[in-house]
């Protein structure tokens, strides 16, 4: 059991982070190729499917650009600042710590994900990810402009608990990577015990559904048990209709990337009162001020 206590040096953590991240990308790419191949066999590869996939990767490029220039440095600095100044204790970076951090990062992910679905300015960025009418691995890489900022308040407490920021970043990456690999129709339902505990492609298809019974369900990252605990779980039954309730109908990456904030600000600026404007920003996506509700 000694290896569980063996210290993972910062250099090793950085190396492991890159290693997992890179291989994750290779595996995701292979799944995407397989998906396209299967679609090809069924003669379902259309200009729209391909255009959508290309647009997804372009939004990824824009997301990375924003993260590199604006969010990244601040994000990392803030984690180290909290860790060095306010941590309750300093946890040794070993496998025990990493596993615990993944579990905690996963529950943080659940709440972050629920937050971006239920708060106007969060949904404006996350809606980009949900706006594809398709469901394949490339959709996992479809990001909104501020997607990199949303995890901050939910994951920062981990630094306060004394996790080495590198362990936190690695845990976030692992949760994200696990999530990425769920974006596929190639995998049906997995054995019952797996479906009961873990998030699976089936559960995540439900999450991407615009069917009324599927909306705001299955927020989980790795463990589906959080959804079961917090009352947001739904089983995949009816065929999933992917996308958002008001479709974007475009494969233009720029339009896709900014459509959420476009729609949000249109509503905010059209609001008749400050309360109304604020409501659009912080209330759930479908919300309207009382005066508007009576109108229609």
């Amino acid at each position, binding site marked *: 059991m000694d290896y569980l206590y063996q*210290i993972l040096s910062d250099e090793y953590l950085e190396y492991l982070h890159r290693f997992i991240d890179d291989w994750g990308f290779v595996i995701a790419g292979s799944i995407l190729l397989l998906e396209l191949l299967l679609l090809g066999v069924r003669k379902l590869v259309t200009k729209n499917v391909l255009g959508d996939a290309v647009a997804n990767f372009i939004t990824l490029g824009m997301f990375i650009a924003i993260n590199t220039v604006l969010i990244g440095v601040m994000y990392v600095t803030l984690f180290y600042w909290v860790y060095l100044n306010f941590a309750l204790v*300093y946890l040794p970076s070993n496998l025990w710590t990493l596993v615990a951090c993944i579990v905690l990062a996963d529950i943080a992910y659940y709440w972050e994900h629920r937050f971006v679905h239920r708060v106007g300015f969060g949904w404006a960025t996350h809606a980009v990810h949900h706006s594809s009418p398709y469901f394949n691995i490339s959709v996992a890489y479809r990001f909104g402009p501020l997607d990199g900022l949303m995890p901050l308040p939910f994951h920062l407490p981990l630094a306060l608990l004394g996790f080495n920021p590198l362990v936190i970043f690695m845990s976030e990456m692992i949760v994200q990577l696990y999530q990425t690999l769920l974006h596929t129709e190639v995998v049906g339902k997995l054995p019952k015990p797996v479906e009961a505990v873990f998030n699976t492609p089936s559960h995540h298809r439900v999450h991407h559904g615009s069917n009324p019974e599927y909306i705001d369900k299955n927020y989980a990252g790795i463990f589906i048990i959080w959804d079961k605990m917090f009352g947001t779980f739904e089983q995949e039954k009816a065929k999933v209709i992917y996308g958002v309730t008001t479709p974007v109908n475009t494969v233009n990456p720029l339009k896709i990337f900014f459509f959420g904030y476009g729609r949000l600000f249109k509503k905010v600026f059209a609001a008749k009162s400050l309360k109304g404007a604020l409501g659009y920003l912080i209330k759930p996506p479908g919300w309207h001020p009382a005066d508007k509700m009576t109108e229609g």
Partner: protein
Amino acid sequence: MTMLRHILLTSIIVAAVYLLLLWVNQDGLLQQPVWAADQGDTAVEQTRPEQQEDLQGSTVETESVATFESITITGVLADIDLNDPVLSRSQVESAWQRFSEHQGLHRAVSWSTGSNIAYAYYHHFSNDFSTARLIIGYQISTTGSGLHTIQSESGNYRLYQLGASAELPDDAWTSAYPDGVILERHRIDSNGSVSASDALVIQ
């Protein structure tokens, strides 16, 4: 009401996982990361009394003989050119530099053993005594990039108490010749500086 229940349930889960982790790591918890200790007045004294005894004594060169058990040392590795004093000095200095900058190593040692003794182990002398291998590290086995682990030789050794300069006397070098090893022990203070040094020369 639902919100309150959710917050409560989340807190319970987080607390449970966290307490379990603290329990598992109970011997490894730190007041602060070791590499932050270099940054000044908030430093925590990490010296253990029994280890202080190892290096107590005058800073005048003295000599004694005893048996020494083998230890595991993990640290940074360097090849030293013994023919050229200027070159070898810079090689040793750069090895110390790499050692002091290896945060993973300092963090590993701080929780696992609490040791604050750095070892500089000269071994693998070439036949003509022109080169040696040096490892600077701690008595610990850990992994990490740029780290090497070695088992020191056991045997009879001479003990030299080193002065403030931590300079090894010439006769220490000659007594290591031809196939001995030299094990320097440097006690590191909480502010990161060496407070006492000695050397074991195994013939």
